[in-house]
């Protein structure tokens, strides 16, 4: 398969993204209004995809690919820890440090991963790997990131688990895991609507983010945001490549590990920042800054590493 053909698989993602960008640049839509789309994305589309990812993975597939889980955990943890230490050293508060570190290591798997499944030929075969990578993220979100964001001295500190449940992505993932474990088929009356909402990812995720992306964001990035961007777009894919080479991963696993690492910063982190009463503009700007670079990098990764998925 030539590099050109492999590149073309992901061109639709780029086209839809640039449609969003052009519509805001030409004044067809006002960019600030498209935050409504991001709200829809965070509250409907991403939870629907999160649920479906787990629901459509068999428990046995999950166990079969456990080695992929720890490799993805390693790829995520290295930038997470390094950026957290650096941000702490630079004097940022615990909440800020945690969110900054999360932006540098948490990929937008429900959006970009799902788009890879939709666009690549036989993309369905990536579902088990995507759900494993996503479960690693959810694990880090519950165990490492959220505890650091919740005010431990606040009046509601004993309601920690209730606060975790405020995140739609976590509720949906937990429900998906329960369904996967029980292995009960979902009624079409529920499956079709959830699938319908999940399919809104390209519309709201790509176009919505495309409208908000502005090249001016690169001019106003602070030093810490540049570090986060480098960690997410350069360091994390490089670590993924090294891990894949070191452990002699097969074609599919190698492609998945690198492609999932190249994905932009998770868009749901800004909702997390909002819920934890932290200034979410820094996180939002960083996500936007990584998005454009990631789209280009994903094209490259697809051209270089993608092979037939069976």
């Amino acid at each position: 398969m030539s590099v050109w053909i492999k590149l073309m698989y992901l061109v639709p993602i780029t086209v839809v993204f640039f449609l969003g960008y052009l519509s805001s640049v030409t004044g067809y839509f006002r960019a600030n209004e498209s935050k409504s789309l991001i709200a829809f994305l965070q509250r409907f589309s991403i939870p629907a995809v999160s649920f479906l990812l787990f629901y459509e993975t068999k428990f046995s597939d999950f166990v079969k690919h456990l080695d992929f889980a720890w490799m993805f955990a390693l790829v995520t943890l290295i930038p997470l820890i390094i950026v957290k230490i650096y941000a702490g050293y630079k004097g940022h508060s615990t909440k800020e440090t945690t969110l900054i570190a999360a932006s540098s290591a948490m990929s937008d798997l429900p959006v970009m991963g799902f788009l890879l499944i939709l666009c690549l030929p036989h993309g369905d075969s990536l579902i088990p790997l995507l759900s494993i990578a996503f479960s690693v993220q959810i694990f880090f979100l519950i165990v490492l990131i959220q505890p650091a964001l919740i005010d431990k001295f606040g009046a509601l500190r004993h309601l920690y688990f209730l606060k975790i449940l405020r995140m739609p992505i976590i509720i949906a993932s937990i429900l998906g895991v329960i369904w996967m474990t029980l292995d009960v088929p979902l009624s079409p009356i529920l499956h079709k609507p959830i699938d319908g909402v999940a399919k809104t990812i390209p519309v709201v995720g790509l176009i919505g983010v495309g409208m908000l992306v502005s090249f001016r964001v690169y001019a106003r990035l602070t030093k810490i945001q540049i570090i986060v961007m480098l960690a997410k777009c350069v360091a994390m894919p490089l670590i993924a490549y090294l891990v894949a080479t070191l452990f002699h991963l097969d074609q599919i696993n190698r492609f998945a590990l690198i492609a999932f690492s190249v994905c932009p910063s998770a868009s749901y982190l800004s909702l997390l920042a909002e819920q934890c009463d932290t200034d979410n503009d820094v996180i939002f700007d960083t996500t936007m800054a990584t998005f454009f670079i990631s789209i280009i990098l994903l094209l490259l990764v697809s051209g270089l590493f993608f092979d037939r998925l069976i």
Partner: protein
Amino acid sequence: MEAFLSSASFLMPLVVLLAFGYFAVRFHYFKLDNIAYLLKFFMYFVVPATTFLFTARMPTHVVFESWPFALSFAIVVVIMSTVSYILSRYFGLSHKNATAFASCASMPNIGFVGLPILLSLPNGHNLVHYWLVVMLVTLAFISFVFVPMLRLDTKHISVVNIGRVFAESVKVPLIIATILGIVVAVSGISLPDFAIQSLSLISNGIVGFGLVCLGMTVTFQFLFEKSYLVWLLIVAKGIVMPLLAYLIATNLFSFDKQQLLVSVVLACCPVAGIGVILAHQRSDIGYEAGQAMVGTIVLCFVSIALCHILL
């Protein structure tokens, strides 16, 4: 009751989607302020992309062969709008209010509701050309009948500038997309794969996005409405129009079972969003039109299930 429930099962996923939107707003999971923008985005982005994709890929002979279907729908719209206009004028509504009433009573919401319902019917993807011709008829009536009539000032007799009306219509994204789609289909240009895939990515979200957004607008306030206009609109759009579509399809045209079902299903669709917007912008019955739209959304699912059993 059992027959009704089994027949309504194809509609249940759509009702669940509406319920997602409805409960998200009721339980403050999603802010009400965002809805207007989402609806605008749907009409300016998702529907035009879907329409272009369907139109451009539709074999032209299929569309041309659907002319009896388009004609039957046009007759329904002409009768509905004329009778509603005359009756509302008779009962004392002003020209603009009567025109807004007539547009709401005769224009079905085929973007948010019509297409998802059609796609959920058995063999639904092969019925899209009917949706397309109905949409063309609807667009033609809105652009060249209702908008000029709402502009017409009866107190100071003036001539409506047809060129200006045409120029304004051509700016509407949905009309641009339809015209472009027709041009591509007629010229025989084949769209490149990446363009089809990009548009498919957008159009795949039409059912989920449209119905969840529509569900957000639903309230049951209309049940307590004392305004006779709301109830007249609900009866006209939700009951009279489907009956008229059935009568015309069976008496004037020899439609097969499937065409008859599609004809009645599309006529059952609730009051069109564009009718409500026009009523808000150019008449005094905007509130009533909005309430009637919500009422007909609820009613249409019951009437479509009934049609499915009977036809």
